[in-house]
């Protein structure tokens, strides 16, 4: 099992799956390896958001809008497979001060062409009848959508294999093949199932991306940021959009190591309500945190008081892969020729996956990508990366987990 491919994708999460899918569509021969099964990492432990509303202006917003186009156009015919839902997002402000900030954000977003509409108290109540009486107003983002992320990853892998790619499960990468000449070019990977030579190797391993990059001798500072999501008993439709508090945006962009939570509440087609979401930098600690659950519950009931009489039937947590500058790493790694990365999308990986995969596939095929990828270049972290010490300590923890 060592036949060569043009592109070897490591990781069958949603980013790897999208990259493999679009690379196969480009006519490249593609192999996807995963240490487990498709969507068994962060892709299976998130909410499946495709959000415009929480993005800061700049390259991430641009990538978001590009990706949204890919979801709606390139992937249109497959929408049903992954329960694509254009549910729309609503940001709610419950304090005068946050309402003022929200209005400022809206004005700027509007000027950049984001579809955002102000909701006064009456309009907000019409959109979400069970919202807290303390909610003062909000903003409606019709472009926000949602998918079932595990189905996205699994079906994109399946569609890629139907287009000629091969997928091999339970195959961890243990090292890289390097050329003796050519400046030590990465020419494939080593696994317990043998060597897999490839023209290009793409690191799509999410929270493990830094560790994998280190095997190739380069620093990619992807860190885990834990998040909990609570799931309620099935209910009749009570929450119609993805509803979150104005403070949520501040937390997304924060690097604070402490526990943060903003209410993010949404209904699902199955009747359960998802309550997110906390952000903690605690390495790969899988221990359940009552502090996090308590905070989630308090925040959710402040947004939707009826939830206090509802039962939670499960919760899950995942590790968002994030970079210190909150931008993903996408593109060729000039420090290790032959190695590419697509990781570090933090809480936006599902939404950004479609665009990331398509752009990367264009670059892998030697084409000029539809969008400039230089803001996401791996080399921005310098020769050794900027957070070397921290990254290592985080990953040591993971190795023993």
């Amino acid at each position, binding site marked *: 099992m060592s036949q060569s491919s043009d592109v070897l994708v490591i990781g069958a999460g949603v980013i790897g799956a999208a990259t493999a899918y679009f690379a196969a569509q480009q006519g490249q021969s593609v192999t996807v390896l995963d240490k487990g099964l498709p969507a068994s990492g962060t892709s299976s432990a998130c909410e499946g958001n495709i959000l415009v509303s929480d993005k800061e202006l700049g390259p991430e917003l641009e990538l978001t809008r590009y990706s949204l186009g890919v979801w709606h156009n390139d992937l249109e015919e497959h929408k049903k497979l992954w329960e694509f839902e254009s549910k729309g997002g609503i940001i709610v402000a419950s304090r005068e001060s946050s309402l003022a900030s929200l209005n400022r954000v809206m004005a700027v977003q509007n000027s950049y062409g984001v579809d955002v509409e102000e909701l006064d108290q009456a309009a907000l109540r019409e959109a979400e009848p069970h919202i807290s009486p303390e909610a003062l107003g909000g903003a409606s983002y019709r472009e926000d959508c949602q998918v079932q992320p595990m189905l996205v990853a699994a079906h994109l892998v399946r569609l890629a294999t139907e287009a000629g790619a091969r997928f091999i499960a339970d195959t961890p990468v243990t090292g890289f093949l390097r050329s003796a000449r050519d400046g030590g070019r990465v020419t494939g990977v080593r696994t317990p199932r043998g060597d897999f030579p490839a023209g290009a190797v793409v690191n799509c391993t999410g929270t493990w991306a830094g560790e994998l990059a280190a095997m190739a001798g380069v620093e990619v500072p992807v860190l885990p940021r834990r998040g909990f999501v609570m799931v309620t*008993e*099935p209910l009749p439709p009570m929450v119609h959009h993805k509803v979150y508090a104005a403070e949520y945006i501040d937390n997304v962009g924060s690097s604070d190591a402490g526990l943060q939570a903003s209410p993010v509440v949404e209904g699902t087609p199955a009747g359960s309500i998802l309550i997110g979401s906390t952000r903690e930098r605690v390495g790969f600690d899988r221990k359940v945190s009552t502090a996090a659950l308590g905070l989630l519950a308090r925040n959710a009931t402040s947004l939707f008081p009826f939830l206090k009489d509802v039962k939670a039937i499960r919760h899950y947590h995942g590790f968002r892969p994030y970079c210190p500058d909150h931008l993903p790493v996408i593109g060729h790694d000039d420090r290790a020729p032959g190695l590419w990365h697509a990781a570090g999308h933090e809480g936006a990986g599902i939404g950004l996956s479609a665009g990331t995969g398509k752009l990367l596939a264009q670059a892998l095929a030697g084409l000029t990508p539809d969008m400039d990828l230089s803001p996401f270049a791996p080399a921005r972290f310098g020769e050794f990366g900027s957070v070397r010490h921290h990254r290592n300590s985080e990953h040591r923890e993971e190795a023993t987990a």
Partner: protein
Amino acid sequence: MTTQPVTISFDGRPLTAAAGQSVGAALASQGITAWRSTRKGGKPRGLFCGIGVCFDCLVTVDGEPNQRACLVEACEGMEVEGS
């Protein structure tokens, strides 16, 4: 010891249960085998595991939804509704 039968209501009609019986037993011993419809297929459901594991027998008790009929003891005046 109370051995007097108790009267509960099920979807508005009165039902007699022996003291100490579960709501599920009160219903089943009156020949009522289903009191809930499934969310997706609208299929009838009643008791299954009988010990609180399967959550198939859910009823609303005195306004509190999603109670396991196999575990709730029938008490005088209790209002039980299917769903």
